[in-house]
């Protein structure tokens, strides 16, 4: 129990403290404004502590490791949570009796995500995953005045439970084969284990991959994605799409590298197959989708497929740094862009009814003319997802390309190119709707300074990362 440990864990403790305070506040004095304030304050405190730790921290315990990688991702998750918290109050107030607990769950889910980014042990991985997952079930079902969120939550709960069980079974097999549960320990034992343990450990790896692939909605574990994206309240969908997936990917990448799983061709081949399938199936499913949230769900399948390329590239030690850089930049770019898209979908006006959300393409029709700021944000988000230059998405995709061409990954590169090509079609379809003129708009969005501020910040982030990515690239390079 030295001071280094307290320092390294202080961001997590700040958020945990925030949940306790929030819980007490809800118990004694319900007031949505207070809840939001407490949530934002603890997120702010957490972010401040992360920056204070920056970048020298390299704390390692049996369960957690707080290094530059974890710090950067934790900061990203906290910022994403802050954006979600900024978006949610008006939305939740319209759709449910009480809104205090929503923020409590949000904080808990963020803590889970942060633990995942720091996890170096199977136990902490599971802890983080379940903390995140259980909080998300409740968040998805939070609006109690309609059935769609409930349906989405149940689907997610059941399937996620199945995935977790698969994952646990995989861990059990790995333990049976090697007697280890820490990532580095697994790697040492793998090297020593004879051929008898080999099959056992490979079966374990495949099951673990399946469990994590579900969370990342990779093909063929992707089917839940559109239903949950559509049913969940928009701010929660944004959170799910960015923080949840980012955290699972973070731990996936770390486990992949530290357990030495990259040495086994069978694992690499499985991952390559999953990546190719995700890139193609995700994009094809999105092709003629009319609901923006479902469209984003399918597109996220493809984007996670793109990200998997990184895992295959970093199996070669020479390209390891470039690949991790690419992954981190891509995650940041994807998170910012996706949050921008969901911020528009949460925009008041689309959400002023308590009934179902209005997220069909036709509801976005002519948005750029009726509400330039919201329209511009959506436009830029779509261009960024499509990977058009001078947006964050382009630099991210370029990074992936330059990482992938370092090795013999032609099939993956080909799928990336084909997938991106298909992607441009449906992203531009949204842009086409945004730009339509001849529509008499039934839902006029009206936004106060609250939404406008956020929109300006997100717009600046997406464009800033595209125009001057070097600042972030330099940051990432400095921590690796």
């Amino acid at each position, binding site marked *: 129990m030295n001071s280094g440990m307290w320092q390294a864990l202080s961001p997590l403790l700040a958020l945990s403290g925030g949940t306790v305070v929030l819980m007490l506040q809800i118990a004694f004095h319900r007031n949505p404004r207070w809840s939001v304030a407490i949530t934002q304050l603890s997120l702010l405190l957490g972010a401040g502590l992360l920056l204070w730790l920056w970048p020298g921290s390299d704390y390692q315990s049996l369960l957690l490791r707080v290094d530059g990688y974890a710090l950067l991702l934790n900061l990203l998750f906290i910022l994403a949570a802050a954006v979600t918290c900024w978006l949610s109050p008006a939305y939740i107030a319209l759709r449910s009796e009480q809104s205090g607990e929503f923020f409590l769950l949000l904080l808990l889910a963020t803590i889970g995500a942060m633990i995942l980014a720091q996890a170096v042990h199977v136990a902490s991985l599971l802890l983080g995953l379940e903390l995140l997952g259980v909080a998300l079930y409740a968040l998805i079902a939070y609006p109690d005045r309609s059935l769609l969120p409930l349906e989405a939550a*149940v*689907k997610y709960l*059941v*399937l996620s439970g199945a995935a977790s069980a698969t994952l646990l079974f995989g861990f059990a097999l790995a333990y049976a084969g090697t007697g280890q549960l820490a990532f580095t320990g697994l790697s040492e034992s793998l090297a020593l284990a004879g051929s008898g343990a080999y099959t056992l450990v490979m079966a374990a790896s495949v*099951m673990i991959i399946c469990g994590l692939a579900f969370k990342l909605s990779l093909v063929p574990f992707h089917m839940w994605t559109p*239903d949950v994206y559509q049913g969940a309240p928009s701010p929660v969908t944004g959170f799910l799409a960015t923080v949840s997936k980012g955290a699972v990917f973070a731990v996936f990448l770390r486990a992949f590298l530290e357990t030495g799983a990259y040495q086994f061709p069978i694992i690499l081949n499985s991952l390559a197959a999953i990546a190719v399938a995700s890139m193609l199936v995700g994009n094809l499913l999105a*092709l*003629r989708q009319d609901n923006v949230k479902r469209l984003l769900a399918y597109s996220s399948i493809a984007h996670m497929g793109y990200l998997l390329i990184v895992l295959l590239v970093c199996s070669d030690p020479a390209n390891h740094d470039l690949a991790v*850089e690419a992954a981190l930049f891509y995650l940041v770019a994807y998170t910012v862009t996706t949050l921008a898209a969901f911020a528009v979908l949460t925009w008041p006006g689309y959400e002023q009814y308590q009934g179902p959300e209005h997220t069909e393409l036709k509801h976005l029709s002519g948005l750029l003319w009726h509400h330039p700021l919201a329209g511009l944000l959506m436009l830029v988000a779509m261009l960024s997802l499509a990977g058009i230059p001078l947006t964050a998405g382009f630099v991210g995709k370029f990074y992936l390309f330059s990482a992938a061409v370092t090795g013999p990954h032609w099939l993956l590169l080909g799928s990336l190119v084909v997938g991106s090509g298909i992607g441009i079609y449906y992203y531009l379809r949204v842009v086409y709707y945004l730009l339509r003129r001849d529509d008499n708009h039934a839902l006029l969005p009206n936004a106060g300074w609250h939404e406008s501020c956020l929109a300006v910040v997100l717009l600046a982030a997406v464009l800033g990362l595209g125009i001057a990515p070097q600042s972030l*690239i330099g940051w990432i390079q400095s921590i690796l």
Partner: protein
Amino acid sequence: MNALWLVPLLPLISAVILILGSAWLGRRAVAVLGVGSVGLAALLTARVVTAFLGSGEASTQVLWTWMAVGDFSVQVAAWFDGLTAVMMSVITGVGFLIHLYSARFMAEDDSYARYFAYLNLFVAAMLVLVMADNLLLLYLGWEGVGACSYLLVGFWYKDVANGAAARKAFIVTRVGDTAMALGLFLILAELGTLNIQSVLQLAPGHWATGDTMVVLATVLLLGGAVGKSAQLPLHTWLPDAMAGPTPVSALIHAATMVTAGVYLIARTHGLFLLAPTTLEIIAWLGVLTALLAACSALVQTDIKRILAWSTISQIGYMFLALGVGAFGAAIFHLVTHAFFKALLFLAAGAVIYCLHHEHNIFRMGGLRSRMPVTFVSFLLGASALAAIPFTSGFYSKDVILLAAWQHDPLLFVAGLCGAALTAFYSFRLLFVAFFGPAQQEPDRTIGWVMAVPLGLLCVGALAGGALTLPLTDVFPPAIGVVNHTIEYIAITVTLAAVGLAAWRYLRQRPDPASGGLREFWFAGWRVDALYELLWVRPYCWLAKRTQGEPVDHLYNGIVALARANHRTLSALQTGQLRWYATGMVFGLVVLLAVLMRAAL
């Protein structure tokens, strides 16, 4: 020196503001923004250049690092040496004067903001072109100025002819640009870099003098230069480009953009020195263009078309200088030409402004006493163009003729003929438009806003010859012995041509009679008709034959394939939990089965 990046940025920002705010910016605000941004850029340039002249050291300055991924780095960097300093000074200095002039010239136009937005954008792109430290960025500026030229030639787009002229300018230069792009690819493939300084350093080690590859690369680059600088055989667009507003002709089609080709060759002169064949081609192309264009200028009646043909001819002289290895002389003539040709265009603009858009010089006349400021400007401009002694044009043309003499007397003789023609047509223009009986009365005055740029350019046209350009470190020395005999011959020929013009056009006013040769020259040696026959008609024929778009079937097939796959996959998204769970189990089982097969 660290303010360098602001120089292209200021006009760019102003252009963006003008484009976005055209609806609510007042005319005064538009003028202040449009003229002020370029003026500020000119002041900054003056500061930067002064600092440079003090130290005299060329340097690379990274303006902006877009991204550095692995070994790949995209940097926007400027190479600043004497040549950059000269070009930036011309662009911002002359550019500012022309912007100022435009503030009044275009004052009654409905699209005032659009005009200044394009003009500012042009200045920004032109600055990028001359500041770029690598050929790719240079190409960005190159295409940028091309686009602005297109926009400004077709500025009055409601007249169909103007749109056609703009398209012609764009498409003809595009032919050259394509050649240039191929040249860039070739250089990249051969040398592995597009950074200009690295290319110049690597080239002598990579290629022997006269190597086929370096000849090919330089010829391709020359293709780009020929297109942009309106030299044979891609010169046909420039006379038509006069459809744009007159200040645009002064800035883009006389002072700056059309000389970009000269700049390109001067900037990459290290490559061209390795390819003597290409240099020979350049010299002969230049002198041939100078002669043919001067002949066409001789018989034109439209004041702007005379100046346009004259521009083609004068750039021919610059190419001649490049071809004989006198790069410094080419840039010197570029600078003096920028002064006196901008002056001539602006003076012509003043005439057009005051005479209800009259372009025909035979319907002018007697303007000497009615528009004294314009007359003096025109007189000085024409003198410099004709290379009358002690004007700027005299000094710069003299150096070129001298270099040509030392290279090949035949080139000198051709150049001398061109000089005589130049002197003749410049004074023909002056005498017909400003002397003789008055035909029309000017109905408005030019005011100080237009008079000040004219006055300052007069000073430039007169005294520009006294400038010493800081180019000694950039180019190898070219001229050995100064030969005064050449000078005297040139002076004699020029003065004789002026006398001939006076004799023919001051005594009487011969009408532009028709005749075989005259019409042939008037139509620019009928090159347009030739191209129509050679290229346009076969192309249209081919386009008609492929109207059914047979290639489209391939793309339609791809679309059908994507849609079919989409339908199949969508059918799997049933919304049923049990089905989704089955999907997961399926994935797990397949992966495990593959594993077992591999393991057992």
